[in-house]
C-alpha cells in the first residue's frame, strides 16, 4: 500500500458517519421523501464501506454487492415514491408523523 493511499479505516469511518447521519435523518425528518432519502444515504454509506473493503481485499465481491445495492435501491425508490404519491392523494400530506391511525 502506498503512502498516498487513504487507509481503509478512514473510509469505513466515513461510511459509519454517513450511516449514522442517514439514521438520524430517518429519525428526525418528518417529510416522507426526506426520510426516504436518508435511507438512501444509509445504503450509500454501506456502499462506500463495501467498496473500501473491496479495495482492501482486492476482490470483486464487494463491487458486485454495490451494484446489487444500487439496483435494489432504485427499485425501492420506485415503490417508495409510488406509495408516497398514493398517500399524498389520500391525505394531502406526506408527513410521516401523521401516520398513526393505529393504537395498541
Amino acid at each position, binding site marked *: 500500500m502506498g503512502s498516498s493511499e487513504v487507509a*481503509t479505516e478512514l473510509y*469505513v469511518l466515513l*461510511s459509519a458517519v454517513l*450511516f449514522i447521519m*442517514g*439514521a438520524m435523518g*430517518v429519525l428526525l425528518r418528518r417529510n*416522507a421523501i426526506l*426520510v*426516504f432519502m436518508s*435511507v438512501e444515504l*444509509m*445504503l450509500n*454509506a*454501506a*456502499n462506500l*464501506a*463495501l467498496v*473500501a*473493503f*473491496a479495495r*482492501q*481485499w482486492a*476482490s470483486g*465481491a*464487494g463491487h*458486485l*454487492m454495490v451494484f*446489487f*445495492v444500487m439496483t*435494489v435501491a432504485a*427499485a*425501492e425508490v420506485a*415503490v*417508495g415514491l*409510488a*406509495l*408516497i404519491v*398514493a*398517500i399524498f*392523494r*389520500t*391525505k394531502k400530506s406526506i408527513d*410521516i408523523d401523521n*401516520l398513526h*391511525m*393505529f393504537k*395498541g
Partner: protein
Amino acid sequence: MSGVPSLSDLNIAATLPASFLALYACLLMIVDLFIPRTRKHVTAGLTILGLAISLVLALLPLGGVARFGDGERAFGGMYIADQFSDGVNVIALITALLGVMVAYNYLDRIQRQRGEYYYLLLFTTLGVMVMGAAGDLVVVFVALELLSIPLYILSGFRWPQEASEESALKYFILGAFASSFLVYGIALVYGATGVTDFEGVWRAVEDIIAEDASGKYLLLVGAGMLLVGLGFKVAAVPFHMWTPDVYQGAPTSVVAYMSVAAKVGGFAALVRVLGCGMANFSLDGGLVAAWQDTVWLIAALTMILGNMVAIVQSDLKRLLAYSSIAHAGYILIGVAAAGSVPVANEAARAVIMYLTAYAFTNVGAFSVVIAVERDDASNTGLESMRGLAAKQPLLAASMAVFMLSLTGIPLTAGFVGKWFVFKAAIAADLIPVAVVGVVTSLVSAYYYLRIVWYMYFEQGEGEAHVPVPLAWAISIATVGTLVLGIFPYLLSDMTNEITLAFGP
C-alpha cells in the same frame, strides 16, 4: 471464483423449483395483461397452477423421490439446494398456495381483484425460497428485497383506504431502514472476511478465530447488523413495533400470507447467515458461537413481550400480530441453538419444523379472521368470535385447532414445532431460554384459550362468510396442522439430513 462458469457449472437444474417459479411469475405478469378484469379468476388459477407445479418440484427432492441437478451447489455456490432449502421451498409454496386461496374472494369483497396481487405474491414467494437457498450474502440481500418490495405494495393494496396505505408506507420506510442495516452488516462481514459466500465466511472465520485477528470485532458488529436487518423481518423484539400496525392496516389476506412468508424468509436467512456462515464463530475456541447469547436473549425478550402484550389485545389481527411476534421468539430459540455446532443441524431442522407448523396454523388463523371480517374491514375484534361454534361449527373447530396449535397442545403441529425447538435448545444447553419458552407458552395459552372460549362458551352473532376457496384454505390448514401434529415423522424424516455446516 475466477473464470466464466459454463452453463452446466451453474447447475441450474438444482434450483428448479425456484427458477421455475421465477420464470412462471414473469410469464404470468405478461399473461395477466391479456386477461380481462372480470376474469381474474384465471390469473388466480394460473397462480395456483404455478405454485402447485413448483411445490411438486420442491417436494420431490424433499421426499427423496428425485434430486435435480448435480450436487447441492448452484450458481457457483450462490444457491444451495439442500434439504433445508427444500424445506423452506415447501413451506413458502404452501403458504403461497393458501395465500392465493384466501385472497381470491377477499379481493372481490374489497373490490381489488387485480392480477398484480397474484404475481407479486409469486415474487415474494420466490424471494422467500431464494432466501432459504442463499449461499452468499449478496443473494440474501437480493432475496430479502425480492421478498420485501412486493410485500410493501401488497400491504397498500387496498388503497385509497387510509389504513392500508399507512401500513404500507410504514412498512416500507421501516423495512428500508432495516435493510440498510443489513447491507451495512454485509459490508462489515465482508470487511472482516473478504468474502461474501458462506463457505468462504466459514473458512475465514476459522482463520480469524485461529489467529485471534482483530477482524473478529468487525465480524461481530457485522453479525449484529445482520441480526438487526433480519430480526426486523421476523419481527423480533425490539424490532417488532411495526408488526401490529402493519398487520392491522394491511388487507387481511396479505397479512395471512406475509405473517408467515416474511418470517419464513427471515428465519431461513438467519439460519443460513448465522448457522451456515458463522456457527463456528466462537471466541473462546469452544463449540458455542459468539452470537448465540445475543440471539437467545432476543428470543427470550421476544417471547415475553409478544405473549404478554398479546393478552390485552382486543383486536384479532393485533392479537395475532403479537402472537406472531411471540412465535418469532420461539423460532429464534432454534436459531440460537444453531449456534452450538453439534446441534446446528438439529436446530435447523427444528426451525423448519416450527415454520411448517406455523405456516399452516397462522395462515389458518388469519383465514378465519378473513371469514369473519366484514367488507369494510370491521368486525375483527375478539367479540366477533363469540358464539361462532354454534353458527359455524366447522369454522370454529378449525379455529380451535389453530389456537391449540399456537398454544402448543399435542396432536397439533404447534406442539411438534415447540417440541423440536425446545429439544434443540436443551441439546444446546440453552435451558434458561427453554424455561422462558415454556413459561410464555403457558401465558399464551390464556389468550388463545380466550378465543376458544369466546367461540364455544359464549353466545353471539357468529357471523362469517366462507366462500369455497377460503373453505379449502382453512381445511388444508386444519388438516395440515393436524397431520403434522399426529404424524410429525412425515416431515421430520424428510428433514433428517439437513446439514448446515461447511466445516469438517
